[in-house]
């Protein structure tokens, strides 16, 4: 490897690059297994140095103080009357997903010995006019919430890469703005993939809503974090409602006026996922 790249690699690991150098280096990193291997070596060295420092432990109460701060942020950031937590999903690198799936497959295999019921994943497809829902039966079910999350993430990523693989279709349309959701009713978690939303008008933001069609309760609402792009894959989870039997969920996206702060109920124009399911 040439000395210039070696130099960049060590400065990258030590966080000594400016933002432009860093972005350029990351672009090269993603296309070069050799460079990635060198960075991993340097990261190992760096980690050993940090872990080799004289070990000092923080006081036991510190975690509680941190969690109290997290709760404050959570309450500040959530629309009134509902909980917002749509987080941008970052695709695992190949090594990462391979290792986590290896764990997942092992637990799934054990799970298969104990269960024979076929798990159901709800898949919803949305365009500006309508939603179409399907239930997807899987051969295996994740043993626990973590394994199900991996299952959902793999499925959501597969549909992101290849939307034609979605088990629900929509009538042909010239419009490119579409979205899909995969949701596991058992673990109450899922993913929403938003594709090709137009740039929001000034003063508006896109909100995604998940509403129970039986109780009409808003189960989840949040701002779609487009981050300058026009879509993305977002993960979410829904808190179960005790003593309430959930019906089907309706997913839709609206453009909400930003002037009045965060919206607790949908008032704006529906841009994805019309009224019909």
């Amino acid at each position: 490897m040439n000395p210039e790249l070696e130099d960049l690699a060590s400065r990258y690991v030590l966080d000594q690059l400016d933002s432009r150098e860093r972005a350029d280096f990351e672009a090269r990193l993603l296309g070069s297994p050799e460079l990635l291997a060198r960075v991993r070596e340097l990261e190992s060295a760096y980690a050993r140095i940090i872990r080799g420092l004289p070990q000092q432990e923080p006081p036991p109460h510190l975690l509680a103080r941190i969690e109290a701060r997290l709760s404050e942020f959570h309450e500040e950031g959530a629309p009134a009357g509902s909980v917002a937590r749509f987080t941008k999903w970052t695709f695992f690198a190949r090594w990462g997903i391979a290792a986590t799936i290896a764990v997942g497959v092992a637990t799934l295999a054990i799970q298969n010995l104990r269960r024979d019921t076929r798990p159901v994943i709800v898949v919803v497809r949305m365009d500006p006019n309508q939603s179409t829902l399907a239930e997807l039966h899987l051969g295996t079910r994740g043993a626990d919430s973590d394994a199900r999350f991996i299952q959902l993430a793999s499925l959501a990523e597969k549909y992101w890469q290849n939307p034609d693989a979605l088990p629900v279709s929509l009538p042909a349309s010239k419009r490119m703005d579409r979205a899909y959701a995969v949701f596991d009713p058992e673990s109450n978690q899922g993913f929403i993939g938003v594709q090709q939303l137009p740039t929001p008008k000034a003063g508006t933001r896109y909100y995604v809503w998940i509403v129970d069609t039986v109780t009409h309760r808003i189960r989840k609402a949040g701002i779609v974090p487009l981050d300058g792009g026009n879509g993305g894959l977002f993960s979410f989870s829904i808190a179960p409602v005790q003593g309430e039997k959930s019906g089907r969920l309706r997913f839709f996206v609206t453009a909400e006026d930003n002037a009045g702060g965060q919206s607790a109920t949908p008032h704006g124009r529906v841009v994805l996922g019309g009224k019909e399911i």
Partner: protein
Amino acid sequence: MPVPDDNETAANEAFLLARIGTGDRDSFRELYGRYSGPLFSLAMRFVGDRGAAEELLQDVFVKIWRGAASYDSRKSRPFTWAVTITRRVCIDHLRKRRRQTSLESPFDETLALEGDGAGESVRSTAEAHEDSERLRGALAGFPAQQRIALELALFSALTHIEIAGRLNQPVGTIKSWIRRGLLDLHDTLSKTSP
């Protein structure tokens, strides 16, 4: 202690970060259990004050919580990512403190006083910890100036250019010392790991 950051560990921790990104507190607590010791030690190394290090560690884990969803495992391992957050939080703190007091950081003062004895604070408390012993041994093998350059790059707010100025060496030499030093440390620590 087993090698802590191999691919399997990194994959597990990437998964924890993914869960934290969805608001999972249990995963956050697990990651805290894994990272709080080394990150607190790093903050202590930067600021040299337990109270300040506790405050900074809080900021670090709040940033981890808020940034977990944007973590990209293709670009760095989770531990490196968390160390970078810690480093930035500590450097911001040192720069603010420097602006407020016009004083050098304790680390810089130590260096200025010790000359070629950089790393003294590592050596003074290293006996209690096996990893620290190995690190101390590995660092002792470096020429004095290279050791200082490496420590400044790792545990101070100085850029490579500033380190070059401090040590009165060309920037290229400093970069080479740091790059070579990291790789040599990796090799030495790998050979001496149990």
